């Protein structure tokens, strides 16, 4: 099971808490998923925050607060400080968004914010692209886990750059890597685990499924299958056919 900042979690599935049809369905989906980590956010208190907090506590998972929606270093750092106090954890999923349509990270602001936060004792989970150099800089800034996107947040497109993700895995064999965002189907999650990723973080694929608990279970099974497949050392693909049935002994007819 993945270990982040010295803490082993019970599942390679990290599940978001947004967009479910109801709190009861959210709880049902979490039970079905076996997720070890729940992502949460901070928003202006309008009356629902305390009920949500009670619901999250009852899930029994670890909490990973995010800085979703932050576009500047200052916003992200202040949000992280507020989240650390509210959720009583040094963990922070650091998002610094660079573009409103693609929601892709601003890598420059991300590295700067990560540097400030790690110096302040945070354990940063950066939502990043699969760019090797950005990832190098994030590690230099003190991050001990990387969370490259599979595809834009909420798109469900899967792993848009398998080559880049494979290269990242090969380049950082000892760094916990999480595919965060873009997962739409269990096959996408399985593919990430087959490549040797340590975990998958998803939300919309489960929350917006017709049957969120059913999809949560499917994701858990896919992640289990992908993990087992990676451990079993998959064959190398090849372009030409190779007969699996022996040619020796074939009859002359």
């Amino acid at each position, binding site marked *: 099971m993945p270990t982040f900042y010295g803490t082993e979690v019970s599942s390679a599935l990290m599940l978001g808490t947004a967009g479910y049809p109801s709190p009861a369905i959210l709880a049902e989906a979490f039970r079905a998923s076996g997720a070890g980590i729940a992502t949460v956010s901070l928003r*202006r208190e309008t009356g629902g925050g*305390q009920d949500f907090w009670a619901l999250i506590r009852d899930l029994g998972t670890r909490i990973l607060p995010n800085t979703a929606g932050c576009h500047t270093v200052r916003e992200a750092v202040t949000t992280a400080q507020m989240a650390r106090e509210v959720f009583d954890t040094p963990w922070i999923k650091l998002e610094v968004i660079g573009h409103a349509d693609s929601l892709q990270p601003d890598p420059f602001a991300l590295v700067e914010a990560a540097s400030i936060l790690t110096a302040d004792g945070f354990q940063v989970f950066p939502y990043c692209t699969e760019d090797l150099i950005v990832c190098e800089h994030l590690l230099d800034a003190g991050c001990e886990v990387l969370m490259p996107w599979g595809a834009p947040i909420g798109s469900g497109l899967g792993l848009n750059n398998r080559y880049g993700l494979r290269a990242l895995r090969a380049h950082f064999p000892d760094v916990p890597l999480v595919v965060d965002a873009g997962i739409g189907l269990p096959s996408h999650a399985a593919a990430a685990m087959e490549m040797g990723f340590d975990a998958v973080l998803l939300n919309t694929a489960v929350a917006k499924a017709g049957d969120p608990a059913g999809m949560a279970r499917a994701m858990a099974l896919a992640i289990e299958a992908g993990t087992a497949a990676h451990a079993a050392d998959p064959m190398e693909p090849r372009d030409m056919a190779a007969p699996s049935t022996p040619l020796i002994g074939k009859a002359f007819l």
Partner: protein
Amino acid sequence: MKITINGTPHDLRATTVAEALEEAGFTGKLATALNGDFVPAGLRATTALTEGAALEVLAPMQGG
């Protein structure tokens, strides 16, 4: 004292962040920021408000 809380104008007797929270009726699991800077819970009682200040009061919410 005229300040905004979560973007809404308020006219309060409060002179500190802690008093503003109490006067506006906020309770529970909350975090505060004043003019963009985090105000830890332990400093709310001694953090003074100024005219026109922007207070943000955040609570746990759904997130991905």
